[in-house]
């Protein structure tokens, strides 16, 4: 008897990802789809994708999807969720989308304690537009707009948005994960599942930040990209639970 140990999750459509080889978006998409299947919420979930490499997320997630302008995912999700409080609304956003142009919308949705979930892909770059500096780009890291490497005097410092959000009373659960190894990926899935569960339990705002390789713009192989995350990126962005207030609610 053949037992299937691993296969494509149900709510991931049968389409080839447009992502580059080794891109963390693919892994994270799959985890989200698995969680949606396991929690059995596909018919009441609504995804708000970003402008960013994941802009075509609707080609992959087999659920209702409503597009947001660049950076405005949290506001769009707020509108959706307030009208449909018993649906599961989540945004999927990049670091440029959330931590640069969407800073205000993100912080205030979190501060209002909107009962939504955010999957926050931190790949330290503007993937879609071709590798410009992101708020999360590491000091010294090269990008097309920091050809000499990020210089704190000129370009400021990597922004730890999750830590800032953790200060807000409206946020319940914030965890930073990475998708650089099977072990980390399993932890990432657990975090994503917990984040959705918190929304299902109506506790408030939950967020999972995913350290995610962008081999193309980092100009590294996928394998080296994962190593680079483990060795360097986690120094600035340590993985682990940043805030968990779910027990107190």
């Amino acid at each position, binding site marked *: 008897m053949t037992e299937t140990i691993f296969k494509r999750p149900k709510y991931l459509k049968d389409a080839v990802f*447009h*992502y580059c*080889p080794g891109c963390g978006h693919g892994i994270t998409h799959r985890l989200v789809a698995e969680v949606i299947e396991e929690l059995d919420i596909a018919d009441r979930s609504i995804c708000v994708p970003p402008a960013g*490499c994941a802009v075509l997320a609707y080609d992959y997630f087999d659920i209702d999807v409503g597009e947001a302008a660049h950076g405005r995912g949290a506001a769009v999700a707020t509108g959706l969720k307030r009208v449909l409080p018993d649906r599961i609304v989540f945004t999927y956003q990049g670091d440029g989308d959330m931590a640069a142009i969407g800073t205000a919308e993100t912080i205030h949705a979190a501060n209002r304690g909107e009962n939504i979930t955010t999957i926050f892909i931190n790949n330290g770059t503007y993937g*879609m*537009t*071709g590798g410009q500096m992101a708020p999360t780009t590491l000091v010294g890291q090269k990008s097309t707009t920091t050809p000499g490497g990020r210089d704190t005097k000129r370009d400021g410092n990597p922004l730890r948005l999750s830590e800032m959000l953790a200060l807000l009373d409206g946020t319940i659960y914030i965890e930073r994960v990475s998708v650089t190894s099977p072990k980390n990926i399993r932890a990432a899935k657990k975090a994503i599942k917990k984040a959705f569960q918190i929304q299902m339990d109506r506790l408030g705002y939950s967020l999972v930040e995913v350290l995610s390789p962008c081999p*193309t713009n980092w100009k590294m192989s996928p394998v080296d990209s994962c190593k680079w995350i483990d060795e360097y990126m986690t120094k600035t962005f340590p993985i682990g639970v940043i805030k968990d207030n779910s027990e107190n609610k």
Partner: protein
Amino acid sequence: MITKTAFAGSGGQGVLSMGYILAYAAMRDKKNVTYLPSYGAEVRGGTANCTVCISDEEIASPVASAPDYAIVLNKPSMLKYQGIIRKGGIMLVNSSLVDAKAEREDIEVIYIPANKLALELGSERAVNMIMLGAFAAKTGVTSLESLAGGMSDVLKSKSAGLVDLNKKGIERGAEYALHER
């Protein structure tokens, strides 16, 4: 008269610089020229391409919906361009990397084992120049001299060794295209 040439392959194969050098060669020929790289990063993928238009007159649209010529360095590119090249056009294929054969009958297809020839010259870096030399020789869009000049215009102060290698590549490609197939 206006000629439109498309260049396509994977990122890193020197596709864009082929087009760039052709454009500079045409400038040396005192022609009008436009160069349009594959445009936009909103959809990702492994391919790169560009289009060069060369004309005695002002150039209107720099887009080639049906290019006269195509130089393709990998299989997906060949599959794509054999579909859109104009009737009577010429496609140059790097046969070292593309095993399949083109299917159209109404275009001329020229296979160049560019990697092999390049290795013979001492470096795989000459692959794109070999293709370009072959292209110039077969189409007459520009001369080998202009190509070599365009190439050194582009490379400028960069390593003399590379300029040399490239020059050899251009000549070798032309030779092969004209005499050895």
